[in-house]
């Protein structure tokens, strides 16, 4: 019988991470974040010419008195920060030792806990070919147990279609938030299209590539029948030293391309190796910053 995914040790690490997150990230930026949107609040932001339909209460009469133009005052809108953790639950995540999926779930649970403790809401949404039902907009750290139960009940299977997932996500979630995508990002072209879509809808993005040691240096050679974990399709291949060399280069390139793309568009990026404990990984991420911009 395998060890439980979220044990007491995990919960202790969550508290520790939450403290670190509070000190490193939220201590500087406070829980409430200033929205880029303009709206009703007491903090003045700008003027705009009056157009019919504007609330007459917002007209700046003193300007009208001096200049004779109707302008309305704009105020910075204060809004909640939503954390969305998109968790890849496709079959490809069900691979490696320890399983990439387990590692990703631990990271997702931790991120959600930090979000619930320091932000307004945290959501965990699993996906594979499309979005799957998740736990959305959980507030308060007391909801963590329900969330962990939810994560424990997830299974990794099926194919990935990140483009479809992004399309569904932006259709459902209109208000921009911080979107953390936990995936292995095979098929980077599709992933990039999906991220572009999310960017277009003003979501702040953070991508976490989950990879197992096997994927960096597969200990295989010879006449093999390779079976796909998602589709169960197979192919007979002769794996040579040369092919392994090319594989390692290609896998490195996959990560490098994702990192380059992320840097180009100011997207947070991190590589989560399953060999590194999730808490060490998260501490590193929090220390580097970028998770919460």
């Amino acid at each position, binding site marked *: 019988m395998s060890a439980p995914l979220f044990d007491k040790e995990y919960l202790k690490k969550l508290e520790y991470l939450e403290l670190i997150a509070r000190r490193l990230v939220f201590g500087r930026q406070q829980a409430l974040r200033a929205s880029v949107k303009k709206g009703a609040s007491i903090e003045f932001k700008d003027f705009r010419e009056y157009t019919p339909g504007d609330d007459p209460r917002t007209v700046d009469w003193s300007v009208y008195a001096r200049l004779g133009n109707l302008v309305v005052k704009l105020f910075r809108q204060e809004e909640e920060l939503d954390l969305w953790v998109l968790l890849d639950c496709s079959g*490809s*995540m069900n*691979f*490696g030792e320890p399983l*990439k999926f387990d590692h990703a779930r631990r990271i997702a649970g931790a991120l959600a806990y930090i979000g619930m403790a320091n932000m307004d809401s945290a959501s965990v949404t699993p996906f594979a070919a499309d979005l799957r039902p998740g736990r959305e907009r959980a507030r308060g750290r007391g909801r963590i147990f329900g969330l962990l139960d939810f994560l424990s009940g997830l299974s990794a299977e099926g194919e990935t279609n990140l483009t479809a997932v992004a399309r569904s996500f932006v259709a459902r979630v209109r208000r921009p938030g911080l979107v953390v995508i936990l995936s*292995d990002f*095979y*098929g980077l072209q599709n992933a990039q299209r999906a991220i572009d879509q999310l960017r277009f809808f003003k979501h702040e993005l953070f991508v976490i590539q989950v990879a*197992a040691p096997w*994927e960096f240096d*597969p200990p*295989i*050679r*010879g*006449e*093999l*029948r*390779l*079976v*796909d*974990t*998602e*589709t169960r*399709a*197979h*192919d*007979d*291949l*002769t794996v*040579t*030293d*040369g*092919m392994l060399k*090319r*594989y390692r280069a*290609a*896998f490195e390139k996959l990560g490098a391309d994702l990192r380059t793309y992320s840097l180009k568009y100011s997207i947070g990026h991190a590589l989560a190796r399953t060999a590194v404990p999730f808490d060490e990984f998260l501490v590193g991420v929090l220390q580097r910053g970028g998770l919460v911009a």
Partner: protein
Amino acid sequence: MNLLAPWALWFGLVGAAVIALYLLKIKRQRQTVPSLEFWQALAGQVRARSLFQRLKRWVSLFLWLLIVTCLMLALGNPVLTLGKVKPRSIVVILDNSASMQTLEDAAQGITRLKQAVAALDEMLARRPVDDEWMLIDAARQARVLVSWTRDRRSVRDAARSVQPHLGSADLSAARELAADLLADKPEPTIVVLSDGAAGQVDLLAAKDSTLVHWAIGKADDNLGIALLRVRPHRQQAVHYAQIRVVNACSNEVSSQIVFELDGSTTAVEPFTIAGRGTWEKTVPVNRPQGGVLRAYIDRPDALAADNEAFAILEPLRPARVRLVCSPREAFFFEQALLAMEPLVDPEASHTLTLEEYERAGNAGEPADLTIFNNSAPKNLPASGAFIFVNAWPADLPARITGILEHPTISIARRDHPLTQYLSMNVATVTRAAEVLLTERATILADSNTGSPLIFLVQQPDRMSLCLAFDVLETDLPFRNAFPVLLRNAVVHLVSQQQAWVRDQYAIGEPIESLRSLPAGLEQVAAGRLEKNQQVRETTLDVRNGAFRYDDTAAAGPLRFRIGEETAYAAVTLNDENESRIAPTGARAAEDAERQLALSGRLFSTVPWVALATIAAALIGLEWLTYHFRWTE
């Protein structure tokens, strides 16, 4: 191509097994991967790279089939020849003479004998397995080392165990022996592994069409002592050493020869010899008391065995002559003997009548030569040297059958030491006995009717020179011929009679006593005289009044202690044919190979070795392709 071991074809079954293994579908190990497309993209590059990638597996099968084929053929010991090879009966004569000890590669120490053994190895490897083989070692005597056999290993082992012989070889006797042994054999072949023995093998090959000469050797840089002979000049109380040096190579060579007497250098003779030429000289050696003479050439060359030679200088002692004659007939003999001093010791020589001689018997004074003139004892003494004039004992194998009146005397043997400087053409003989020889004797002079007038009877321990006429009935006493004949007789008969052994022996020749040893003598001490004049003696048993010494494999002086007396003999090469080491024989080794229908070579080696090497190389290549398959 014939397979000497056709059972190896069964090894072909391994090839069938290899094919079966390659045709069986490989059970691939299943390996789950996160994204098959990722791997397929990589594999697509490999698949598209070249057709060879897909053919590798079949290349491997092809290589393995080639490996199995090569191993099968190698095990089969193939013989590459045109047409069918008939099994033969082959006698191999291994020339084991001194010239075969020539160093062909001084650095590696490879002699011609070793090359001959290697040639035999090659012959054994490249002839069909059905051949019958015999090996003859042609040293001083031809000796069968391995009798008829098909076991090549025993032939090979026997050839390798042959001990080098530093003397002459009797190849003619070896060929005769081989021909006798091949008399009733099918496809008879005699193979002589030799450097040609200065043309002797060519002469043998000209007489015998079944003889194949496999020429061995190339070196020709050699100066050799072809002859060292010492003759005493008793009159001058000096020895003369005759030496002959030959140059085997085609270039003119200068060097020097050193003479040592009992270990001390006595003379150095420089010389220059033209290519293939000979240098000869006679030098006096003034050592009347005798000694061991060693001559050596002060120059290293390909053959060391003939760079030194030995000879014995016998002590020059005046002869003691006993004249048995009536006093009134003794005058001419006594005058002639007195004139021979120092050949004859006048103090120890004496004249007596036949009665006095017979009365004294064995108690009489010893003599080296006894002359009986017109009187003879009843029986021939047991040993000694004798001159019988006009009468001899009845037990001498010469019977008087009549009287010859006024025979014309003429010399029959000019080359004999007894007739040296002798001229009898104008001598007058009034009367002579007509003699019939009943046993073999050397006729030195005969009459016009063919009757022997002067003859020498050589018997064990006895030498008898007989004159079939009364000297006083000829004019010989007034001619030089008479003292010359007496002198020759003293020199030759005394020197021959005095020796227990000859002064020189060939290498490998057994030494036996020339005359009966004294009664009661049971052992003789013999040993080699070392450079420091020390002798390590061995004891020889005396059997039937004689001894035999066999340790003559190396050149050098030997000493024999026979009772109170000491005798010396020299073992030496003294063979010009051995010194002329330049290989002879027009037929090259390739011709011999063709005559013997040897299997062709594959990559300059015997086929099975080449095939085994190819198989090993193919295994390496297959491993590389296998490795490359996983590491490309």
